[in-house]
């Protein structure tokens, strides 16, 4: 098992605000790793820093043994793809699904577009019938499936998932989580997944990191969390909150 993503002492600063204060983590190849925390804890910023969407002010990020520089080269995005939280915002409203899926292929000069698009749609459980629709003609769950297809079409080895189901209804969430698990198994993908929901993270991930105020609170395995073997008070609070409302 080698480290697929290694992050060392990562700092992200927006103006004077330190969004990440020296965070380190290591995701092994083929592993599913979760990041949990409340809003403002820096969990999404960490994903965005890896893809180059947030400014890194110090620290290192290594993906598949290659250290990332100031700019990301195209090859990285063949390996690492991201699925965003809001499927209503992440798909171009005036492009058909077909056009959306062609874009990454064109950027990377991949041949066989026709076949790849068909296969990608098949893989996420959308038939050919969806190929020439616009985003507004799809439901939230279907849109998220398109977003996943767009990420998978480049055959990456790592998926970064930023709250992929928090905009979806519970029943649709179950479908999308099942789909993600299935593609991960089939393609032996590595997941780095962000969620505010402990139950989703323990369902999807083997290990996880709890974050608060731009810092790591603790790193746990899913079974430690399930067995309530946690050491930080903050994690205990999160656990209690996830059990729902209790009248005092």
């Amino acid at each position, binding site marked *: 098992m080698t480290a697929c993503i290694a992050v060392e002492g990562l700092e992200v600063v927006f103006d004077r605000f330190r969004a990440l204060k020296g965070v380190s983590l290591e995701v092994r190849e083929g592993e599913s790793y979760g990041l949990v925390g*409340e809003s403002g804890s820096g969990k999404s910023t960490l994903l965005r820093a890896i893809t180059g969407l947030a400014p890194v002010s110090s620290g290192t990020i290594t993906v598949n043994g290659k250290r990332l520089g100031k700019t990301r080269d195209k090859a990285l995005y063949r390996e690492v793809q991201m699925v965003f939280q809001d499927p209503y915002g992440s798909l171009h409203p005036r492009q058909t699904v077909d056009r959306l899926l062609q874009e990454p292929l064109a950027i990377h000069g991949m041949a066989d577009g026709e076949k790849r698009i068909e296969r990608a749609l098949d893989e996420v459980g959308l038939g050919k019938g969806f190929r020439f629709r616009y985003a507004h003609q799809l439901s939230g769950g279907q849109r998220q499936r398109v977003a996943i297809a767009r990420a998978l079409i480049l055959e990456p080895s790592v998926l970064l998932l930023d709250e992929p189901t928090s905009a979806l209804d*519970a*029943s649709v969430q179950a479908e999308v989580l*099942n789909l993600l698990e299935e593609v991960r198994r089939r393609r032996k993908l590595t997941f780095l997944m962000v969620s*505010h*929901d402990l139950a989703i993270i*323990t*369902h999807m991930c083997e290990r996880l990191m709890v974050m608060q105020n731009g810092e790591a609170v603790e790193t746990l395995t899913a079974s430690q969390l399930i067995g309530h073997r946690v050491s930080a008070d903050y994690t205990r609070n*999160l656990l209690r909150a996830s059990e729902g*409302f209790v009248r005092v």
Partner: protein
Amino acid sequence: MSDTLLEVDDLRVTFPTRTGLVQAVRGVSFSLGRERLGIVGESGSGKSQTGRAIMGLTPPQAEVSAKKLAFDGMDLLSISPRERRALRGNRIAMILQDPKYSLDPVMTIGRQIVETLRTHEKVSRAEARERALAMLQAVQIRDPARVFDLYPHEVSGGMGQRAMIAMMLVTGPELMIADEPTSALDVTVQLDVLNILDKLVAERGMGLIFISHDLRLVSSFCDRVVVMYAGKVVEQIKASELRDAQHPYTRGLLNCMPRIGFERHPLPVLDRKPEWAA
């Protein structure tokens, strides 16, 4: 729970669209005493439109009809807009989902609370201020005098939602409709806000309609749950008996969420039957 506060019989809300009429709510009936009632459903199930119709906030192009829609014996559909306005914010109040959008961004929190109060009651400025401060205290805001003069963007989501609750409770309503009051908040803050809401509702003997997509949260908070699907009520059940729910939709909703300590791969998914919507 003997006195009925609200009676809803065969409520329908119809929207005209380019492709014809769409019924968002199709014959919803329930009654409410001084208790906590949850309305649960997925997006598009008509749960929010049900709440808005009771409040009288349905968009003007839509049509609301019902065999009976009565609040404290008053027929809400036949009274004048003026009488309706007098009820709204006074005897019936509503908490909306996201304090970022539902508070006025260019007015301090204190002024908004005072405005609500002075709209409905003849009180002096000084007294209104006193009552607003007391209300902010009641929602467990530590430094009410400071928060009174803050603008909504200067407070956190949890604080904003408390201010919203304060604003809605300051007139002492008898019926409170809370539409996803905690969905925009972090889980840890969620519980604080729910605790405050729970205490105030119990102390003041209000009727509460709690609208949410989260069946588990609603069942832990409410006495009774109405489950909606495609504009209809598919099941009404006591929250304590939710585990014995009959309808496959209710059971499916309960089942499909991942839970800590219950390993299920893949998660069970809802097998939607067309007859549920019939």
